[in-house]
């Protein structure tokens, strides 16, 4: 059954709703941001209309260059870690009894409802030397004395991973629960071990879902701006922290807008590369 192409105004009426909504809530604010990125800063009114490139020129300094590279590498690393952990978790989850799955999903949703601020606070507690996990390790005898693991890059990676994990599970869950159970069963019947089945059947079949989950966590992590300040040292502050700082505390809207746009372009480029690499592998087979 081929869909008939819609003709005339009547058939397109339904499109007005998303078009209008996206226009009002996405296109207009985005256009304003692009315009502001070329404006000049003004102490009194935040910015005044102009066409200057100085906001962009300021980005090409070692300080901001380093921050760009760090933010993108950090988000990519966390994205990779989260998907590596969340994928087997979700796969095992979909193999449980239906009722147990529902409990797990409700629990995952409750973790999802924690805000960045709360996640930052709890992990700085859990990784602290006074009330943290290291006290448990001392009690068991693995450590001589409690250690403070925060602020550090590791703490930041842990916090960001915790933030991204429930999203990733919820993105992977629909695809994995629709996976035909006959595929792993066939693999098992032909004599493959469960691990071999997982790596050689489940992962290749789910490749496009894995790539979209990777991209989603990556983009999601780029936006985190509380966790780097709570769990990281100043040198671990990501671009989102700097954007917030410029926009709210330095009230330099044009520069903040320029940073946001460059960050978006860079991350879109990385997403494109990921998609091309993922697609290239599929055409090989």
């Amino acid at each position, binding site marked *: 059954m081929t869909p008939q192409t*819609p003709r005339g105004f009547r058939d397109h009426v*339904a499109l007005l709703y998303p078009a209008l909504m996206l226009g009002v809530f996405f296109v207009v604010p985005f256009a304003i941001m692009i315009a502001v990125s070329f404006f000049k800063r003004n102490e009194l009114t935040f910015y005044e209309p102009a066409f200057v490139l100085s906001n962009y020129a300021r980005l090409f300094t070692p300080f901001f260059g380093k921050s760009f590279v760090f933010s993108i590498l950090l988000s990519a690393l966390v994205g990779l870690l989260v998907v590596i952990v969340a994928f087997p*978790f979700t796969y*095992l989850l979909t193999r449980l009894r239906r009722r147990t799955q529902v409990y797990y999903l409700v*629990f995952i949703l409750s*973790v999802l409802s924690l805000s960045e601020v709360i996640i930052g606070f709890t992990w700085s507690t859990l990784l602290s030397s006074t009330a943290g996990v290291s006290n448990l390790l001392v009690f068991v005898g693995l450590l001589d004395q409690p250690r403070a693991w925060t602020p550090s890059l590791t703490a930041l990676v842990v916090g960001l991973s915790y933030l991204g994990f429930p999203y990733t599970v919820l993105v992977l869950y629909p695809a994995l629960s629709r996976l035909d159970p006959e595929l792993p069963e066939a693999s098992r019947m032909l004599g493959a071990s469960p691990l071999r089945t997982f790596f050689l059947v489940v992962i290749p079949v789910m490749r496009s879902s894995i790539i979209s989950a990777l991209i989603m966590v990556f983009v999601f992590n780029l936006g985190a701006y509380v966790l780097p300040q709570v769990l990281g040292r100043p040198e671990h502050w990501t671009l989102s922290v700097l954007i917030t700082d410029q926009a709210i505390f330095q009230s330099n809207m044009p520069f903040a807008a320029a940073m946001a746009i460059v960050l978006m372009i860079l991350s879109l480029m990385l997403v494109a590369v990921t998609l091309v690499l993922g697609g290239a592998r599929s055409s090989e087979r």
Partner: protein
Amino acid sequence: MTRTWSNLFMGLMLLILVAPLLVIAGVSLNAEKQLLFPPVGLSLQWYGELLTQPDWRNAIANSLIIAIISAVLAVSIAFTVAMLFTPERKVDAIVALIRDETVRFNEERALKKRLAELEARVPAAG
């Protein structure tokens, strides 16, 4: 063997996921007005304040209202946009898709009815 490992993995993940929730639950019982963990003194006063003070009740109501409105808006927009793509991932209008679906549904319904009729005949024949 593999089963044990996967249970161990799921258990460990649950433990990691639940740890921050336990910390938050513990802190909420603090008697002091500070973010202290483990809690100093036990009291339910913060829960009482949350439910009785108009400021906090107002904030709870606002959170719920905003969450509901934004969920309805976001899902309705995303849903209509998602309908713009055919199963072959070609851009198509929502109308064409709905039309196609209804035709397909009708065909499926007719097919199921025919199947039921045939099945009803089988035991009689056999």
